[in-house]
């Protein structure tokens, strides 16, 4: 494990917050895309 010195909490917090935000955004984008694709497919099937 690399040594982060006395600022370990700060650095980890920064990386953690960024990871949460980015992964949240990616997850939301992908999920919304899948939802839209399913809804559209259903609509196009029905006519």
């Amino acid at each position, binding site marked *: 494990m690399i040594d982060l010195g006395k600022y370990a909490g700060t650095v980890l917090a920064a990386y953690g*917050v960024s990871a949460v935000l980015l992964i949240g*955004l990616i997850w939301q984008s992908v999920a919304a*895309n899948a939802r839209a694709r399913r809804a559209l497919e259903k609509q196009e099937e029905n006519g």
Partner: protein
Amino acid sequence: MSIWEYANPVKFMRSSGAILPWVVAGAAVCTIGGVLWGFLTPQDYKQGATVKIVFLHVPAAMMAINIWVMMLVTSLIWLIRRHHVSALAAKAAAPIGAVMTLIALMTGAIWGQPMWGSWWEWDPRLTSFLILFLFYIGYIALWAAVEDPDSAADLTGVLCLVGSVFALLSRYAVLFWNQGLHQGASLSVAPGERMSAVYRYPLYLSMLGFLLLFLALVLIRTRTEIRKRRLVALQAREARA
């Protein structure tokens, strides 16, 4: 074939579908690579381990501004050339820009705690970013509030135009209001102020990664918007019939 034809929704779906896997792969490699590499860089003699935050903070800050510029351009394309996909791309980009701004703000705030001894200072740069965040929120809220898509595209386009002018104006007003603590652009080529190569190359890589990540996300989100619009359009046609 002119570049404008890419704005045709069907063509856009086809070509974006083709390049998307490559962009996603590139984004994953560069972002994860850049950020990891940055995380593993040695400590700075002055700032200690906190320099590692720069590999998130600076790319996010850069993208936060670039995305707004991209939205301005696509809004103008919509307002002038009426390319529907371009309007939807602006809509799709806004939440990404807002998250980037938020990352820059939050990593900055976390960084400020050890460096300046407080979470937040009304430094001009920080303040300008807060204002940019407000503009993003207003833009997103307007898209959400207007039901008719044509009106929504037009109104948000006008808002983006006016907002850009005022975002710039606010930046100068804020500079007048308070001289700050934040360091200047250390990526500038002014000799002597440059970052050492240990930090510079991972920073470049993660900036590229954030750019690709943005591209991948805009493509995905624009495709989502197109599908949603198509669904609504088909339903509207049925309801009319």
